[in-house]
């Protein structure tokens, strides 16, 4: 298994599918691709999750598809239903799972969501569907990856009981537009960092 230095950079090259380190016992966060085959992007997401939350990362698809959540009237996928199924398939050594999907997600009261998380729960999901908005062909890969990583960290933050933060640069800030996502950093502010530490201590108890 590759070791990481303090800044979260791997000291040795990463294997393609599994990035992990013995930082928090045997507990793992699973990055679960649903319908996307771009494995490089999952490695990036896994690396960033590891940097922020410090758990082992495993890239492993827990759901083959999300067709069961499709709503023909809205032509969208019901994210809460996906989360329930996802949490039910979580292996015992895993603490959290984040699913990444290409489909457009919704919850019944809202027109759409970029992602959804079980607050202080096990599962969260991020959709790439609306993340390419406003990107020119030149900067698509780089900017898109940054957006996806930020949204993934944000949703995962909710599963660690973090709420929305008013600090515009904090990863837990709720962005009204995709441009705000571009503007915010990929870091937690000092408040959210402390609240995350509290939550991690609670998980250890």
């Amino acid at each position, binding site marked *: 298994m590759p070791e990481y230095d303090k800044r979260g950079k791997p000291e040795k090259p990463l294997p393609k599918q599994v990035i992990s380190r013995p930082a928090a016992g045997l507990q793992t966060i699973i990055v679960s691709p649903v319908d996307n085959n771009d494995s490089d992007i999952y490695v990036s997401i896994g690396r960033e999750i590891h940097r922020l939350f410090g758990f082992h990362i495993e890239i492993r698809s827990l759901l083959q598809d999300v067709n069961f959540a499709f709503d023909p009237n809205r032509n969208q996928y019901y994210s809460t239903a996906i989360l329930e199924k996802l949490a039910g398939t979580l292996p015992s050594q895993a603490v959290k799972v984040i699913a990444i999907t290409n489909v457009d997600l919704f*919850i019944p009261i809202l027109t759409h969501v970029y992602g959804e998380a079980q*607050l202080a729960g096990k599962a969260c999901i991020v959709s790439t569907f609306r993340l390419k908005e406003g990107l020119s062909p030149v900067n698509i890969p780089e900017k898109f990856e940054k957006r996806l990583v930020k949204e993934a960290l944000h949703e995962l933050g909710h599963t660690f009981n973090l*709420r929305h933060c008013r600090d515009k640069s904090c990863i837990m800030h709720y962005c009204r537009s995709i441009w705000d996502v571009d503007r915010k950093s990929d870091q937690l502010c000092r408040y959210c960092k402390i*609240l995350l530490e509290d939550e991690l201590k609670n998980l250890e108890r």
Partner: protein
Amino acid sequence: MLYTKILIVDDEPIMRESLAGWLERDGHYIDTSASGEDALKKLKETRYDILLVDIKMEGISGLDVLKRVKESDPDVAVVMITAYGSIATAIEAMKNGAYDYLLKPFDPDELGIIIEKILKDQAQLRENIYLKTQFKDRTRFESMIGQSRPMQEIFDLIMDVSPRNSTVLITGETGTGKELAAKAIHSNSARCEGPFVVVNCGAIPEHLMESELFGHQKGAFTDAKETKKGRLEISHGGTLFLDEIGEISMRMQIDLLRVLEDRVFYRVGGTQPLKSDFRVIAATNRNLEDAVKEGIFREDLYYRLNVISFEIPPLRERKEDIPLLAEHFLRRFTQETNKPIDRISRDAMDELMLYEWPGNVRELENAIERAVVVSKSRYIQPEDLPIFRPDCRISPLDNSLQEIEKAHIIRILEENAWNISKSAKILGIDRSTLYNKIKHYRLSKPA
């Protein structure tokens, strides 16, 4: 404020739950009701800041809920949720005082913007109310009065803790005089020459709190035209009184803890560490231990604050102080208004003694002020008092003798229109014994 209480009223479970889940991520406290009837029941028990109400529901409609809420508490913001076909009803709701309406399914941003705007307006309202009561309190309510045993114990405690430098946590219901107790501690301490600086954690909007407490450097944010000292700096050499500490946000809890630990802080936008020497007295009407258990108040901050703590008893538990307090307020308001009122009539005093005073000393003060204004005779009469009687639960009785005594007392009181003197005479006991019996059986004069 610690968190915003939102009630979602919708008869469609899926709508209710998806909205609740979404709003929870913003850190709000969310409650749900499946009907207008259930919502009205919940509103009797809890005060919500925002209501999100579906217009079309079986039974009591969303519009009816809105009307009832606006009658009882006009400051609650009600946002109507409507389907495409019922926009006309939504507009009618706006005419009836709804804050806004949302067409479902709505854009998440739309919802966020409305809630943000409501919170901003409500914070402004709270601040205005606070400033008004601060002014009122400063001008009139500056002395602590009480001859009851619980108050004598509080006075002894104040004298004991004043000379020390320890942090004090004062608890007690609204209107019991927590700030007066804090001022008394300050006045009797070695810091009495220093400032007594009040921070009302519940009244200052969260976005202003950081700058209020820590101050800011010129240019730290758009409105920071000049460098400003924060209340921590101003309280140097004196006492910092953190009122309504139970309402402070998680972020400020983190900052406060750090300051209380090392007394070092930075102005917003500043890089220079500042030191200030102040004693902290905090007050709350919340049960902080419960708040810690619920995870909304930091345990480490609670222990940092709870070095010495005491509770000021509610007025209903020290009714013997009522005549003294009432006479004190009567003297003050007759002087202020120049009205020739000599005293409070015996019947009016009976009314004061029978009332439960949920708003405590502050409510009594307001009641006497009103009575002085409306009174047309030399004595305050019962009808001059604005007090009303809340429903009172009767505790289960242990045995039949007590049951007979209670029933007899109720009968005599009712036959004599709750005239205490007459009833006591008929019962063959003195007035104070009758008061004790009324208190023991938790009897209350019907409205």
